């Protein structure tokens, strides 16, 4: 007779002695984390031992829902296990890293579990159902728009500087071109006036007196000329000196 398949199922009664009641606890509040894309964020809370004996615990990380075409955030919890002394607490930190390719405005949910590693009030182990206590937190994660990095700001500043420099260069170039044009036209006007003055001089007088008159005119014209027209005046003067020298040599 094969006793393996007789279809009789037996669970033995168990001898259970309750020595003490474990009193695992947690700080109230369900964590909702808003995490920038390409960034990370941390939430911390406390788990507690309100009993008279140490509680060994382990952490079960959350299984987050998946969203098509997006990478599920990485959740790192510290510590993953440990022991809480009686009437004391243990800080638990949940760090969430949001992948760079994810879109803002997405939502993930999962449960962070802290369960007793071993029941503290069981003196015998065996058949039946072992009832383990734990505390849980519903973790909700939202992705938010990526936070600008310092590099981003640097790029913006560089672009602004380049634009300003280009604009300033254009303005300066235009001004210089305008002033050059003005100088040239002035020089032309001065030369023309000299030529006409020379022609007048040859008609009005000769000798030393005529020369003095022409020099006095030249001096007054130099005195009233503006600084921007100085160069033209100097060139005109040079040409006049040359003419004078030529006359003298004659």
């Amino acid at each position, binding site marked *: 007779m094969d*006793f*393996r*398949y*007789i*279809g*009789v*199922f*037996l*669970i*033995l*009664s*168990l001898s*259970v002695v*309750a020595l003490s*009641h*474990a*009193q*695992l*606890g*947690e*700080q*109230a*509040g*369900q964590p909702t984390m808003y995490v920038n894309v390409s960034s990370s964020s941390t939430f911390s809370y*406390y788990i*507690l031992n*309100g*009993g008279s004996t140490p509680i060994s615990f382990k952490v079960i990380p959350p*299984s987050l829902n998946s969203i098509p075409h997006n990478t599920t955030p990485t959740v790192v919890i510290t510590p993953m296990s440990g022991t809480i002394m009686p*009437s*004391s*607490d243990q800080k638990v930190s949940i760090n969430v890293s949001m992948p760079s390719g994810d879109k803002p405005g997405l939502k993930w949910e999962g*449960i962070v*579990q802290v*369960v007793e590693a071993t*029941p503290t*009030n*069981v003196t015998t182990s*065996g*058949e*039946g*159902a*072992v*009832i*383990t*206590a*734990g*505390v*849980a*937190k*519903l973790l909700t994660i939202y992705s938010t728009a990526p936070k600008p990095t310092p590099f981003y700001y640097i790029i913006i500043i560089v672009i602004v500087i380049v634009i300003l420099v280009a604009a300033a260069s254009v303005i300066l170039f235009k001004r210089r071109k305008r002033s050059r044009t003005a100088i040239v036209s002035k020089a032309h006007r001065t030369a023309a006036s000299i030529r006409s003055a020379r022609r007048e001089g040859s008609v009005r007088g000769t000798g030393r007196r005529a020369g003095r008159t022409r020099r006095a005119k030249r001096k007054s014209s130099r005195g009233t000329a503006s600084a921007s027209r100085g160069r033209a005046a100097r060139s005109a003067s040079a040409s006049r000196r040359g003419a004078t020298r030529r006359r003298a040599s004659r």
Partner: protein
Amino acid sequence: MRTKSFVGLGLWLAFILAVMAVVVYMHPAFASPGSAALTANVNVGNVIYLNVVNSSSGSKINFGSIFPKNSYDTNVLVTDNDIGGNIGANVLVEGSSWLNASTSDTFGVSNTLWAASAQTSNTGTTLSGSFVNTGISIAQPTLSTPSTSNSIYFGLNVPAGTPPGNYIQVISFENYNVSQNIYNASSTTNAITAKVTVPGTCYISLSPTLISFGSIVASANVPTNVLVTDTDNGGNVQASMLVEGTAWYLNGNTLLTNFGVSNTLWDASSQTTYTGTALSNTLSSTGITIPKPTSTPTSNSIYFGLGVPGGTPAGSYEQTITIENSC
């Protein structure tokens, strides 16, 4: 004749000098110090002064954030000074109940402890609502040491069920000379304000932690009436109960494909038949809540039942059921 006139002149001179000496002697402007006696009296009475300070924050002490059922070691220093008194004294101390001004919630003054020396645990004498002689003495100030002081340390225990919030307590002091029945005459600061923040908390305690469904034949079941009680005996907010389980393992380690976790049912109330919600291997909300504890613990029940599939081999089977509270 000449000799006589000299003698007469000398006598006149001696007379004039004698008169001048008498005038000088009699005039008060020429009186020498100490020559007149004056007696001054002052009656210096016994006096005690009082000035209590916390070394870091003046007239305040802050216990920070303490969870219900947790405590702060008796090591928060307050210094009691007698600055300018002239007799010794003992420190008397009393306190008010802890009060949340926003909600009017309170907890007892006796949760504050005091001790004459810093403690590494929450031990000491409970604070009273009326003045108590601590036995801590402040030495007699003297001319060379006009200021004397002594230390008193405080700790706090936050009782189970204390509602969350910010609480304050006023701790008052008196300096008292027992033999002369003299209290401090005046004081600059005779009270300090203690503060504590109590966060929201929930606890879980399960009973029993092992359940037996007894002996069952295959294709039979146990009604959903096996009780597990979930108790919160220290928290201060309502909690929700969640549950999950593993498959049944033969002899604790062999997994059978047909005897899965869902053969266990749970329900919020005791059933006379094998009925309820199938247990799952993922944590699920039961809809069962553990009410907010006050001064007494609160609890709620969950019931389990089991059905054994036909063809299940004989043996001892084990399953782990995890019940979790969330708040």
